[in-house]
């Protein structure tokens, strides 16, 4: 599969020490990677691993904060998409960058000299030629409106456009994520064909989160994890598919940073009373719909919910918190149903939810720390009396929380919007763990936090369980789940597809369950292509 002829040639594009942050979130951290002609180079990783950011940097859409980009061995800046194009980098974006109301010909003419009449007949002719070069059979109608085409056809049109502009490196950002399995297989064959073209071998950068696709077509696979390069693999003849698969799984989910997985020591006695019970919970009006989710969390127990993002975890959390009604089943807190109770009522009974959306639904950035701590019980004594806010009580309460949770802020009146992600998370934890908490749901608690804040957060979660709370931990970070949970369930397509006890061997088992479930749900993701156009 590999081409030793090209292996020693200067890479088309080299990235060295690339860094990129969005606010406090490190999207890419010191990433080195080379892309060569004649090679299909897969960028593999979970959501949020930094793959799309890397693709956007190659496309000239994002500028790195640091690091070097070398084109044909010369250091350069890719200042804009036009710059990328002129440097021979063609990009097929996840959401097709074609104007839906224009024909394909006009889309390809776009960006030409403003005073010129687009040479539509000539462009159409060149389009047919380029399509034929990649094995097209005249299916691509140059005069069809882009918006009327299927996603696969639009992707093909973008590849044709890149070829017409003499691209030497073709970057495809998650091209298969919204395709049917057959269309995805076609695309993978096409990438192979472009890389193997004897006359003009292209370099292909294929961004995906699907392990099997990576193994199917990658000459070289770079695994990204949490913005860092977790490793590189060249699947060859000396390696069985299963070995390669296990190696990649290890890179995807464990990464270089060896976090000592401490299994929570105090396993609760099997006799401990169930605190939170979810019984055959179903929500039809969700994407994906939640079906028959059953969970039992005992006092002092941490139940981890693993799975790829967007498989119903958020809907489950919102149903538990009272933010989303459910159709069937029930949720019991200490044996009593909470059906019909709102957020504030559930908060008072001790059912708490620390959202992953810290800036959106988690806190109000224009309010002080003190008020954010009380936001789920506005109007309650002693903080409000006769409708009047008692500032002294609010401040005193906030000072305690700042002390207890080590919130780095000037004082109780500091606005939440001025806090870093880690401190904002502490404010939320202080609020949700305050008072008579009995059960708490953590949604991706360490997402976007630096290592130290993440460690502090993990300590809080363990402490909450040790204090006798029932804890549900939703995370896409497998290390986190395995390190903290006594019981792990895997969600896919709105269902629980696996239940795995925590401890030895959980890591591999959960990883396998996730990748298996993803193959099953891949078919279900097709034909969502039209939502993205406008």
């Amino acid at each position, binding site marked *: 599969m590999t081409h030793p002829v090209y292996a020693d040639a200067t890479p088309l594009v080299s990235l060295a020490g690339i860094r990129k942050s969005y606010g406090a979130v490190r999207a890419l951290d010191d990433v080195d990677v080379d892309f060569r002609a004649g090679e299909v180079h897969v960028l593999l990783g979970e959501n949020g691993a930094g793959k799309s950011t890397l693709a956007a940097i190659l496309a000239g*859409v994002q500028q790195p904060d640091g690091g070097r980009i070398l084109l044909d061995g010369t250091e350069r800046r890719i200042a804009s998409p036009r710059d990328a194009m002129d440097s021979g980098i063609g990009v097929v974006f996840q959401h097709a960058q074609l104007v839906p109301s224009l024909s394909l010909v006009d889309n390809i003419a776009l960006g030409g000299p403003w*005073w010129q009449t687009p040479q539509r007949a000539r462009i159409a002719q060149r389009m047919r030629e380029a399509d034929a070069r990649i094995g097209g059979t005249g299916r691509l109608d140059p005069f069809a409106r882009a918006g009327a085409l299927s996603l696969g056809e639009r992707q093909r049109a973008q590849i044709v456009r890149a070829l017409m502009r003499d691209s030497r490196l073709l970057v495809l950002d998650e091209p298969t994520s919204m395709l049917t399995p057959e269309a995805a297989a076609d695309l993978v064959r096409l990438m192979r064909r472009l890389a193997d073209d004897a006359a003009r071998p292209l370099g292909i950068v294929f961004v995906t989160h699907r392990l099997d696709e990576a193994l199917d077509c990658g000459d070289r696979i770079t695994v990204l994890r949490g913005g860092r390069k977790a490793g590189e693999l060249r699947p060859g003849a000396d390696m069985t598919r299963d070995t390669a698969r296990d190696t990649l799984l290890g890179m995807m989910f464990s990464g270089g940073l060896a976090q000592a997985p401490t299994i929570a020591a105090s396993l609760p006695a099997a006799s401990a009373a169930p605190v939170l019970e979810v019984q055959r919970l179903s929500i039809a009006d969700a994407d994906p719909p939640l079906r028959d989710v059953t969970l039992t969390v005992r006092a002092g127990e941490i139940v981890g919910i693993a799975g790829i993002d967007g498989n119903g975890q958020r809907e489950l959390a919102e149903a538990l918190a009272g933010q989303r009604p459910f159709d069937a089943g029930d949720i019991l807190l200490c044996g009593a149903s909470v059906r019909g109770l709102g957020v504030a009522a559930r908060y008072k009974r001790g059912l708490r939810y620390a959202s992953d959306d810290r800036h959106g639904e988690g806190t109000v950035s224009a309010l002080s720390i003190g008020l954010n701590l009380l936001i789920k019980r506005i109007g309650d004594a002693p903080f409000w009396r006769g409708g009047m806010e008692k500032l002294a009580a609010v401040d005193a309460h906030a000072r305690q929380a700042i002390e207890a949770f080590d919130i780095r802020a000037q004082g109780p009146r500091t606005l939440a919007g001025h806090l870093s992600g880690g401190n904002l998370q502490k404010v939320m934890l202080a609020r949700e763990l305050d008072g008579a908490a009995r059960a708490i749901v953590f949604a991706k608690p360490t997402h976007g936090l630096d290592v130290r804040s993440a460690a502090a957060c993990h300590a809080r979660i363990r402490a909450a369980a040790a204090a006798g709370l029932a804890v549900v931990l939703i995370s896409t970070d497998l290390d986190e789940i395995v390190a903290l949970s006594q019981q792990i369930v895997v969600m896919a397509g709105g269902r629980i597809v696996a239940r795995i006890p925590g401890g030895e061997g959980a890591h591999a088992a959960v990883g396998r369950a996730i990748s298996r479930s993803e193959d099953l749900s891949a078919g279900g993701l097709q034909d969502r292509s039209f939502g993205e*156009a406008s």
Partner: protein
Amino acid sequence: MMELMTTAFATALLAGAVTAGVPLLLAGLGEQMSQKSGVLNIGLEGMMLAGAYAAFVAALGTGDPWWGFAAGMVAGMGIAALMALLAVCLGLNQIVIGIALLLGVEGATAILHHLAFATTYPRLPPAPSWALPGLSHLPVVGPALFDRSPVVYAAVALVAVMVWIDRRTGFGLSLRAAGEHPSALDAAGGSVVRTRVAAVLAAGAGAGLGGAFMVIVGAGIFVPFMTNGAGFIAIVLAMLARGRPLMVLCGALLFGACLSATTALQVAGIDAPTDVVQMLPFAAVLLVLAIFGQGGALPAALGEAWTRGNPLGK
């Protein structure tokens, strides 16, 4: 009611429709281009008013209406340049900037007019007209359509130019892409910012020229707030035309006829209350919106600021 059908009434109505419609046409064509590129140019009225005042001052000072038209265009583009800088280059909210510019221009022109002309109220000499040989002697349409200021002919010719830009130039493609899917234009190597700036400046030029026409050909005098909603009618026209310049022409004549109905009815000797007659154009806007306004196909990214790499700015 028979006396309504006299030649004098028909001529006055048609001539008035053209006089009132040409500013709408000029501003509407500019606004249409701006909207196509994704910029909802709410400050259009302000650009018209700035153009009207600058045209008045220049035409009065030089005694030459052509300097007035030139000054009107430049003033409209000046306000448009502010709009482009704030709403396109810096990505601020288009509606807020548009309203601010309108209010600013209204205040500034009223004060300047008060300081300079409040006691004298000078008038401009009648604007020159070009009679088209052969056509200008036709009954009714001759004096109403074919013995007019050259700007009238230019405005109609501009409709054809706009159609040509849309269909035959790379800029026309860039305009539509910038309004429908700006990041696709960016990814294709075009410049969203440059396209939008050009379109906003064109809208300013059109509105400024329209304002100048109001002063030099229409009123012969500048009065504070004299555009009286014409800019907003032009915005509605541009929206209703759904990207077709010819529809702007039809709409401008229709609304121009409504606006000029007061004069025409007076010529015809009908004594309708002025307030009722002055409501006509705005009632017509409501009526036309109610009939044709449904399911309008406005550009998908209309009104949205765009910056590269912003996840919201698809």
